[in-house]
């Protein structure tokens, strides 16, 4: 299981890297952490002519947080996110989801840009990106453009990236204090891709009604997506066990999972419903400081297995 032959370049600047990626011979691939690309090469599922290593390019590994929101360079690694305590308030769903991303060693090399470009339908960051209205910044020799996360992911391992384009950053809108949110997923084992997962958030008004409800799911479709039918069941409603149950039921009905080795489509559909219900209940509890508000039928999941 040795990778096929390829050439290697480690340019010092982004323009140089973009020029290499735009080479007319084609089939150059960017390399950052390599945690998704290397297995693909080891199984010889791809044979690029050139790998363009981004390791020498400066300024792409910062997490900037300001009034506009959170902006992460493409070379930000999972461990950087894990260690950045600011994200717990600046982008709670990501801070919560990060513990589910792969394994310790992978987190020391795996990057934001790599995960987005790989676009696994069960990966956490793409799910958070879609659920939290992120914008993905891409660049090529032809210039830069911003793509809404919802438009960026186009199918399993398929994105809106042109062959010569590179993900350079992802930015999330500002996160107001007091917003309710939660992330839930269930995988076969810790660190595996989720059988299904969900990131939910909403803003509560004084009457306890949800506004701006977002319910994003992973592992439940060929790409990460929001379940607008489920969001509609909660939006404008008082958040309680009943409305949460209706939203969860709608979520299960709105997703379109497939069978695979690890779970049937019917199971995944059920799981989406259960996880959305639990996530919404926990999001609500997080704002009120207790589970009671959501009623006794709702249970916490997430025991380690």
């Amino acid at each position: 299981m040795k990778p096929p032959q390829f050439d290697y370049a480690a340019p010092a600047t982004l323009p140089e890297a973009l020029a290499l990626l735009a080479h007319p011979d084609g089939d150059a691939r960017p390399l950052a952490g390599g945690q998704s690309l290397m297995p693909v090469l080891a199984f010889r599922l791809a044979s690029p002519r050139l790998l363009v290593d981004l390791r020498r390019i400066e300024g792409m590994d910062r997490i900037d947080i300001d009034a506009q929101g959170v902006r992460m360079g493409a070379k930000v690694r999972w461990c950087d996110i894990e260690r950045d305590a600011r994200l717990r308030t600046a982008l709670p769903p990501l801070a919560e989801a990060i513990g589910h991303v792969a394994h310790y060693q992978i987190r020391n090399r795996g990057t934001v840009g790599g995960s987005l470009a790989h676009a696994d339908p069960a990966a956490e960051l793409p799910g958070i990106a879609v659920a939290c209205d992120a914008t993905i910044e891409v660049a090529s020799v032809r210039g830069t453009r911003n793509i809404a996360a919802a438009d960026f992911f186009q199918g399993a391992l398929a994105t809106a990236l042109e062959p010569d384009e590179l993900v350079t950053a992802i930015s999330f809108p500002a996160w107001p204090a007091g917003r309710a949110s939660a992330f839930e997923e269930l995988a076969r084992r810790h660190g595996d891709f989720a059988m299904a997962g969900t990131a939910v958030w909403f803003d509560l008004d004084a009457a306890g009604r949800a506004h701006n409800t977002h319910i994003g799911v992973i592992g439940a479709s060929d790409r990460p997506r929001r379940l607008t039918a489920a969001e509609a069941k909660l939006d404008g409603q008082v958040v309680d066990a009943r409305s949460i149950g209706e939203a969860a039921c709608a979520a299960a009905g709105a997703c379109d999972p497939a069978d695979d080795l690890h779970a049937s489509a019917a199971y995944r559909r059920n799981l989406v419903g259960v996880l959305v219900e639990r996530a919404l209940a926990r999001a609500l509890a997080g704002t009120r400081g207790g589970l009671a508000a959501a009623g006794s039928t709702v249970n916490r999941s997430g025991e380690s297995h």
Partner: protein
Amino acid sequence: MEVSFKVNGNAVKAQVEPRTTLSLCLRDHLKLTGTHVGCEHGVCGACTVIVDGEAVRSCLTLAVQVEGRSITTVEGLAHGDELSPLQAAFRRHNALQCGFCTPGMLTTAHALLTEEPDASADRIREVLSGNLCRCTGYVSIVEAVLDARAAYGGPAGDTAHGHAAAATGGAGR
């Protein structure tokens, strides 16, 4: 291509193809065969080495990517013939059988305890979830890592966690 980096404190150079992984470079070019290759697709963790203090999978890293970096392999953990406290804890707790996953377990645990000497049993299990062992069932590995924490400045005592407890019965004798 030529690549230069440090391994276990020594500066090394190797002539490699771009496609040469760090694991292959260490094993074949530098004859450091303590780093084991168990899957070559980033799942088993046997090939874990420490790059500038961070545990990484050497099968998912190209040798050319570690230019100028400083690497610690399992061969760099012991003090000469003397086992390190972590290695000695592994031996005391029978935290290895066939020994194939062991270098990756040791490097991962060493990186963890260096950063987090007070890691809990659950944290240790979570971190080691990226290292497969087929022999031990992990119980003794977690006990050994807990036991070794004191040597990194963490809490003393070993397995005083109901969690990882296991008994070798004696009453039947």
